[in-house]
């Protein structure tokens, strides 16, 4: 039972990471109907830049972990702008779906390859900013970092939600998400809003990267699987629902740690992906998603 509980706790921490990345997918999907297939690579770059600033790989540490976070998020935002400008904007203009899918994938490959050439192909350890001695809840060991991950992820999503609801800029984002054409006619620069959503989305991913890095290993290949599974989460929860992202994330995170322990670590990616196929077969709009009505 202790083991089960412990696995559940790790699953929750992992699930919240998925939720944050899935949240990032939702941000760009809402404003532009596009997704960044390199979301996982944005996370990976965030983690590696964070490691270079707060760890020893580039002759550091230069600053401590907590001060590094805003810098990494800034880097993530810039990276998101690059993705949007090169990969997405030209395709949105020509309404070419194939175009943005292929170009965000191409950019993802390039980012990964560049990262491999800068930081090497081997995984690196990320020094934990807090004590790694676990404490006990109901007899199960919990790391302080895991708690930070859960709280950090929730705080990030809450901050974005508050921004959208309370600030005038956030209202522009929501308006664009609801009806891009109408928002444009009301004087909102929807192109800028889309760029902003990509910046925010990549910043969120970069933030998730530095949160998860102390718990796992850091390396050029860390992003791909995380990005893919977070997409599964976004679909399972529904691409339009923030709550869906959290619930989907928790389901997948826990399913994964349990499979990893009780069946085999090799299979731990499988339940999430199967769940994805299942949800699509039964309820394509996701557990919390709204079905849209097509107009003829």
């Amino acid at each position, binding site marked *: 039972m202790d083991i089960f509980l412990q696995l559940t706790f790790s699953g929750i921490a992992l699930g919240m990471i998925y939720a944050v990345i899935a949240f990032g997918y939702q941000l760009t999907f809402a404003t532009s109907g596009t997704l960044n*297939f390199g979301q996982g690579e944005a996370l990976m770059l965030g983690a590696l830049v964070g490691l270079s600033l707060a760890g020893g790989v580039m002759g550091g540490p230069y600053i401590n972990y907590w001060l590094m976070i805003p810098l990494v998020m800034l880097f993530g935002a810039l990276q998101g702008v690059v993705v949007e400008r090169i990969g997405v904007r030209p395709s949105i203009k020509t309404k070419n779906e*194939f175009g943005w899918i292929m170009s965000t994938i191409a*950019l993802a*490959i390039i980012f990964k*390859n560049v990262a491999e050439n800068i930081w090497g192909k081997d995984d690196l350890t990320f020094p934990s900013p807090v004590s790694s001695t676990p404490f006990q809840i109901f007899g199960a060991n919990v790391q302080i970092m895991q708690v930070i991950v859960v709280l950090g992820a929730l705080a990030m999503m809450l901050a974005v939600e508050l921004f959208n609801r309370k600030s005038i800029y956030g209202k522009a984002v929501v308006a664009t998400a609801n009806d891009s054409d109408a928002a444009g006619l009301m004087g909102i620069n929807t192109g800028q809003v889309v760029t902003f959503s990509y910046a925010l989305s990549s910043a969120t991913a970069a933030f998730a990267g530095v949160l998860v890095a102390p718990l796992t290993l850091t390396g050029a290949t860390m992003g791909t699987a995380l990005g893919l599974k977070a997409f599964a989460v976004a679909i399972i929860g529904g691409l339009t629902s923030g709550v869906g992202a959290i619930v989907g994330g928790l389901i997948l995170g826990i399913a994964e740690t349990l499979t990893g322990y009780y069946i085999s670590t090799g299979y731990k*990616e499988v339940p999430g992906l199967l769940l994805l196929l299942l949800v699509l077969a039964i309820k*394509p709009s996701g557990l919390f998603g709204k079905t849209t009505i097509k107009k*003829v």
Partner: protein
Amino acid sequence: MKRNSLILGIIAFIALVAFPLVIPNPYYIHLAETILIYAILLFGLDIVVGYTGEVSLGHAGLFGIGSYTAGALFFKLGVPFALAVPASIAVTAAFGALLALPALRVTGPYLAMVTLAFGTIIQILINEMTFLTEGPLGIKVPKPSFFGHKLNEVEYFYVAAALMMVALIVVNRLLKSHFGRAFQALRASPVACDCMGVSVYRYKVFAFVFSAGLAGLAGSLYTYSEEYISPNTYNFELTILFLLAVIMGGRKTRSGPILGAAIVVMLPSLLSDIELFRKIAYTAVAIGVVASIWLLAKKRKSLREIAIPLTATIAMAVFSYKLENIIDWRLTIFGLMTLFVVYYLQDGVIGFLRNLLEKIWPNGFRKVDEYGALANESLAWEKSEHSGKAGVDLLHANQVLMQFGGLKALNQVDLKIAKGTIHGLIGPNGSGKSTMMNVLTGIYKPTAGAVEFNGGVISGMTPAAIALGGIARTFQNVQLFGEMTATENVLVGLHHTFKSNVLDVMLNTKRYRAEEHRARIRAASILQFVGLTDLSNEEARNLPYGKQRLLEIGRALGLSPSLLLLDEPAAGLTAPDIKELVAIIRKIREHGITLILIEHHMDVVMSISDTVTVLDFGQKIAEGKPAEVQANAKVIEAYLGGDAGSNAGAAELSAPPSSTPIPA
């Protein structure tokens, strides 16, 4: 055209036979063999990507399933080549169906991600299911033997070449047939495709499964070609390589995949030689600079448009000069190539060359329509199989309620359409007319109530089933298959006349050829009826607006409907066009087809309708003969507001000579 492709085929055949004789180096023969094998897979991938317009990132996984089916069958059971290859095709196609059935309920980015997930699962399974696949150790498979003789590299090359030719012919036949037309149609306008009785979902699944079968064939050939397979081959990189090959070669062609395969197979060898890569990069810069100067001098492009690609090419050359180890940067180069192709070479190399040739020789590619001469208006009509009893109501919508959230777009509407009549459906904008159309054709499922057609309940059936049952329609905002010719558009409407299955098409049987011949004559006849004979080979998107509307009617007539729904057919038409349209509508009725007509041109509606129903805010407010409706106080109020019965309103509604639509 036909002779050209025959000559090309013969040249290709000779080239394939001669290749091992001219270049006996086993390394190059093996490379050519790989190109042939990739080409088979890419033919299939092109069906999905080029024709149905979906992005599959799962083809490396399918390729892996094909490889491992052949590998495991040989390794575990010693199954010979002749059985292992068909088994691979079947197993891979089955996996393709397993993936496509849930995944194709969604489209676009969803499908891309789902297929990516599928590819990942397959790679994991190959790695983990060691009892079947030997896991990371891989499986060794020798070249196949026939009657005790083990094939050598050259002989196996011929086997691969023969199968590639077979795949090429089969795929070519499929894509030229009604199946290929369905694939293109469902991409251009899914809604219209469903309403022509061609189920979008079913044909997408079929395309994907067929494509998976080809991937299986390619995979099994690959196993015997490499003689050793291991899980790492079938990774994400390979998927990207396949996609790059299809778009770089040229979508919707057969030569594109072959060229694309050649490029991606040779690429790694080219990239391993840094000197060569530098030379390529420098040449690219030279070409880029010359082309830019030329484009600028001719004012074809502005400096801004040229700046990005030119800077990128120069940066590439500088980068190649600085570079020491190119293998580490291989993926970056793939990525850059993909970006380049997506933005500057959308039609691929083959498409680019074809556009160039078309500019030099504008008429070289024009096909002559030999069926135009066989057209005869009387052949356009085929007695509908669904013609119920005369004098009875053909269609009966019973208390239909259609609710979107809190809005009742249709509120308990009753509608009876008598057989053989023209039934006008009018009402101000937003009154629910188009919603009614969508309910009748199955695009919307009514919240409550039922629709009966020919005595059977049709509400709840799919649009495709309803269309096949005898209800055809046109669309308020024209929904033609833009890149298909006028003839092909009508042929999609005639899809239901084909009884031939895939095998008929693949083997080009007599039955299929007869059906195709008959359908083409009928398509030409229908085009003659709607007056589009001269434009039969023009792409639908290039037709003038009025002709597009007529083509939509022609396409709908292909279904041999017993009920035809016209949604604002006169919208945007000029006065002479409207006259022509009215004549066509009358003729359609004379052939026993019942019509429902939504229209804002009151003179049109009032002059040709037998009965008129008026909707307002989702409710039926009046019904009867045109004259009765025109005098109805409620109707006048709905259109003009204010007090019912104002004389000005009545005059406006009943003024036949003015062709101005009522502003609503």
